[in-house]
């Protein structure tokens, strides 16, 4: 029933999609396969960019911007920062596994998930009613629409996010505060490996 | 109308008014609870005070139940002294209690045995918690016998488990923990089915009348179809079969009886076993007449197997308490037989047997405890020739033994006689086989008696010579002995009170069955078309 909307899909769109999709998938695979966390982080950046492109491609300019700013600008940087801070930028033996079978299982199960979702969706992905929360097309700038809906329909969630951010702050404070070590007998296993820089 | 009827009417009405005067039954249940909470407030060192309170409370209960027996209107088959209060309307549970011929003497038995336990089988150490648990247990048992609400019954039925568990693990013998756990879990599994069945029945009743209640007086009128009835009845009976116990659900009982302290074994064998059989008579027969009649052969067979099996296995026991455990498996078999034979004689016989079995089993366990206090063992092989040293003990033991064998003139005979007579009329061949039990019981009991009391004097070490029963011990046993003889010689007063209720029950059963048959006949032509 929605096919009418995508009739306008043109060749450039397709090409963009193809490229972006490749970027996304490669990036994702990179995240998983690279042995060095730093590289994984960079691959993540790649994926996120690809996704931003796809956002733009789907007329979500605002989100694309936020995606780039928040993810690449904040999240990944934070990742890299932590990696460097903790000096764990060393290789992980990706292919030596702690216990056998895990990776095989993971592959099989992952495949199942993918197949199932696609099979379920493929017949007809979109069955919903259009424009319930408010139409997008011909409502002016993407930002306006989102902003409007944020401050009307989604006002409360918007406020709730503040609580979320407060939690984040407190969590950071509480957890990463340095304590004078007062080891209890519950660390016997740990002592050996404790090498504080 | 003539004077006699007039006078009886007056008398009855007088009885009613006197019955309403005071909530006897509620008091019976609540007095022990209050006493228990009172004891909780007493410091644990004031042993005498604690014990005094406990004794007074239990004796008070005995007094009240005596009053109840006095006020009980003989010849009235219905529930008497009923009191109803809504408890949890949302769940359809109500505090409704009452007594009828079937429960009357079980209440009396309970309220008699508990003072005896407190007097005769008292725990030396940790007096406080012992008294509290005993009193709570008494409340639980009385509650289950008195409650007319299926769920109240279940609550009390379950509530008895906690005190008995603590009694066992705190004052029991070596293997107590395992035995207690086995007993508890086994019973709990049983009551799981009971609970589900009860709720299911209540909802059936709701769907038919729109009223959600667990009051058996209403539930009786529920129309239960054949299969449902059978399933529900099995669910109920499983719980009771475990509690009684009925073969083959008995294997917890030898361990439990053996490991439990004297007090607990007395209550287990004397009172709590009756919870099961009482449940069968009260709920199975009353709520599922059709299924009962349908399944009667099965349970009759189980009962008979129990009688024979319990007897012959008892004959092979080396531990005195285990022997008693199996003997009461055999006696429970008689009760089941009577209950499911569904004749007036057999069912009243079953009810009487519950009372009688309570009396002589309690006496047996008391005597065993007394033997233990002298010889420090339950092993039959290690007990010899007590009769020479303790003739009085031997005499009383003999009497109780004969009662349990079922010698006429003692109470044991009355129940067995009625049960067998009634069963013979309805299900001849089961009765014929069951009579074997009469022989077998003599075999194992006499064997045990010979081992323990006969044969030559044992070598008593001069430090601690074996002494005969002390005055206190005699005082504890006297009431039981008196009742054992009295009920054997003149059971009529008891039966007269039991009779009407039982007849009403039997009539109800057969009525429902008849109506079912009628419906079936009415339906069959329709099916034909």
């Amino acid at each position, binding site marked *: 029933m929605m096919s009418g909307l995508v009739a306008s899909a043109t060749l450039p769109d397709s090409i963009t999609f193809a490229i972006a999709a490749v970027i996304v998938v490669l990036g994702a695979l990179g995240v998983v396969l690279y042995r060095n966390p730093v590289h994984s982080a960079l691959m993540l950046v790649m994926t996120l960019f690809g996704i931003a492109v796809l956002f733009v491609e789907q007329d979500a300019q605002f989100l694309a911007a936020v995606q780039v700013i928040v993810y690449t600008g904040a999240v990944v940087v934070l990742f890299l920062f932590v990696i460097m801070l903790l000096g764990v930028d060393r290789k992980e033996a990706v292919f030596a596994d702690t216990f056998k079978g895990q990776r095989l299982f993971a592959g099989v199960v992952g495949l199942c998930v993918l197949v199932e979702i696609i099979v379920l969706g493929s017949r007809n992905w979109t069955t*919903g009613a259009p424009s319930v929360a408010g139409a997008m097309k011909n409502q002016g*700038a993407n930002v306006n629409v989102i902003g409007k809906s944020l401050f009307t329909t989604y006002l409360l969630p918007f406020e709730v996010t503040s609580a979320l951010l407060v939690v984040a702050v407190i*969590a950071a404070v509480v957890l990463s505060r340095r304590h004078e070590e007062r080891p209890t007998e519950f660390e016997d296993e740990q002592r050996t490996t404790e090498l504080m820089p | 109308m003539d004077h006699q009827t007039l006078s009886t009417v007056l008398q009855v009405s007088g009885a009613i008014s006197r019955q309403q005067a005071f909530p006897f039954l509620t008091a019976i249940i609540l007095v022990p609870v209050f006493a228990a909470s009172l004891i909780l407030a007493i410091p644990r060192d004031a042993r005498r005070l604690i014990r005094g309170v406990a004794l007074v409370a239990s004796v008070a209960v005995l007094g009240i139940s005596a009053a109840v027996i006095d006020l009980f209107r003989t010849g009235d088959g219905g529930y008497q002294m009923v009191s109803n209060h809504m408890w949890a309307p949302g*769940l359809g549970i109500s505090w409704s209690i009452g007594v009828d011929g079937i429960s009357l003497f079980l209440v009396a038995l309970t309220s008699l045995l508990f003072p005896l336990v407190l007097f005769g089988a008292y725990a030396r150490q940790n007096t406080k918690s012992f008294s509290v648990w005993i009193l709570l247990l008494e409340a639980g048992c009385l509650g289950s016998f008195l409650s007319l609400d299926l769920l109240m019954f279940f609550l009390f039925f379950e509530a008895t488990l906690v005190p008995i568990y603590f009694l066992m693990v705190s004052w029991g013998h070596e293997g107590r923990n395992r035995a207690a756990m086995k007993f508890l879990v086994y019973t709990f599994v049983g009551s799981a089915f009971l609970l589900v069945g009860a709720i299911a029945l209540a909802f059936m009743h709701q769907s038919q009348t729109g009223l959600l209640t667990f009051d058996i007086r209403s539930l009786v009128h529920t129309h239960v179809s054949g299969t449902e009835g059978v399933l529900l009845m099995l669910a109920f009976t499983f719980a009771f079969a475990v509690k009684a116990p009925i073969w083959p659900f008995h294997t917890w009982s030898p361990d439990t009886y053996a490991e439990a302290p004297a007090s607990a074994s007395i209550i287990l064998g004397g009172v709590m076993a009756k919870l099961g059989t009482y449940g069968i008579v009260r709920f199975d027969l009353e709520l599922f007449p059709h299924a009962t009649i349908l399944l009667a052969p099965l349970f009759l067979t189980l009962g008979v197997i129990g009688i024979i099996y319990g007897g012959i296995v008892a004959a092979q026991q080396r531990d005195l308490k285990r022997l008693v455990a199996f003997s009461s498996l055999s006696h429970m078999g008689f009760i089941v037989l009577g209950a499911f034979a569904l004749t007036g004689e057999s069912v009243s016989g079953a009810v009487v047997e519950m009372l009688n079995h309570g009396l002589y089993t309690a006496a047996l366990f008391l005597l065993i405890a007394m033997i233990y206090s002298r010889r420090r063992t339950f092993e039959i092989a290690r007990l010899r020739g007590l009769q020479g040293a303790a003739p009085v003990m031997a005499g009383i033991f003999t009497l109780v033994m004969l009662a349990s064998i079922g010698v006429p003139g003692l109470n044991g005979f009355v129940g067995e006689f009625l049960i067998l007579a009634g069963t013979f009329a309805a299900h001849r061949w089961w009765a014929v086989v069951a009579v074997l039990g009469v022989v077998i019981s003599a075999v194992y009991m006499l064997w045990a008696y010979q081992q323990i009391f006969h044969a030559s004097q044992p070598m008593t070490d001069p430090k601690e010579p074996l002494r005969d029963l002390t005055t206190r011990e005699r005082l504890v046993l006297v009431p039981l002995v008196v009742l054992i003889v009295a009920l054997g010689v003149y059971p009529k007063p008891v039966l007269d009170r039991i009779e009407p209720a039982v007849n009403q029950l039997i009539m109800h059963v057969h009525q429902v069955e008849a109506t079912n048959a009628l419906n079936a006949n009415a339906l069959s032509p329709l099916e034909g078309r």
Partner: protein
Amino acid sequence: MLASAFVLPVIDYTAILPELILLGGMLVLLGLVAVIPKDFATTTYAGLTMSIGTASLVSSLVLWHDVTKGGPFQAVAQIVNVDGFSVFLMVLVSSILIVAPMLAAGYLENEDIQGAEYYILALISGAGAMLMGASNDLILIFLALEVLSIPLYVIAGLNFRRATSGEAAMKYFLLGSFSSAIFVYGIALTYGATGTTNIGSISGFLARNVISSPGTLYAGVALMVVGFAFKIAAVPFHMWSPDVYEGAPEGAVGFMAAIAKVGGFAALFRVFIGALPTLASVWSPVVWILAVLSLVVGAVIALSQRNLKRMLAYSSINHAGFILLGLVALSSRGVASSLYYLFSYSFVVLGSFAVIAVIARDNGGGSEIDSVRNLGRCSPLLGTVFAIFLLAQAGAPFTTGFLAKFYVVSAAIDAHSYAIAVLAMLSAAVAVVFYLRVVLVMFSGSESPEAIGSAVGQPVVTSRWVWSGLSICVMATLVFGVWPSPLIDFARAASLIFH
């Protein structure tokens, strides 16, 4: 064309007052932390938290009054429901927030985890739990879920002296965010399938039109089920809970367990009965399986546990199974029974873990089963209290534990699902074993006759705070066990919306 100037929706503050009180109180505490010197008695913060909780309790009761008067309504642009259900949960959460600080205070003091962090986090996640019960939009539920969980991750890691605490936090966080990622993907698919995330609209949409190829919708539902099942620790999504309960600081575990279950179940019921009633025939088998698995696995694995906290973790998995029975029943009776169960569970679990915290403190953090040996002798009162909680969980008569089990089972039977009812009761019978094993160790001194010995030497002394907290829990457990009518009526009123 320019965006027309929009008007902010009318905000009915009373409708969200309890949440606002909690968050506001949280900010107050934060301010205090900033201005007040470091070595400030943590118990004061506890006191403040209690008063905040009390305030929100009062406001939710007021709200209850409004609801009973004016009937249920929706507020703040139809995004929160104010009905019996949400108010019941508000009341429950507020009361948890009153009791939890008392129980934690003593512990935190002892571990000298100073400051107000714990209380702040508790308040926030309390607010989250309330929102989960109230919200009328999947997005808001997702946010609330995060607001509920993230503080819990932190609390799990609060005891920085313990390796296990950090590990617990890590596991809880990784798996939690993993599951919420799955959850949000589920929301996305559902959104695609129905065109909206608003619960009311979803149910309306599904009621109005039949979806010829419901693949996307089903996928979405499945993924959301995973999200909820994880939060309520239903098998097979339960595996985090034993580890987290064991690693997390004892004083807080009770709160974590209670609040997570409350929030999770609130949202579960809200979504599945509120939004997807028309699909009941499709998802109820899944819930049935989850319930069965939780009942069985929880009870069975608990049998083999030697650590009290792990044992209780598994037993609460078993409890989750019981609460799911209410959803299996798919009736207002079912919802009411689940709510009643949640209520009784919350207090029992709070109390149990508080007792464990005390014991663990007395023998250096160990919470093995032997650590309660002879507790009944050394400090009878504490032993009795613990025994009461354990017996209540086992479903002993005259405690809320029994009535709760009875209520849910009866709901299941009312819905003619006898099999699961019997199964539930049998699992309860199995559960009796491990509860009583603890009681046995406490009172008879030994689990097996050979191993006689005393672990708890001197009588255990605990702070006033803990005692008062425990007494409240015991009260709630016994009073509503003997006189259940008010609570039951409340629960039934709370479930009326689902007719």
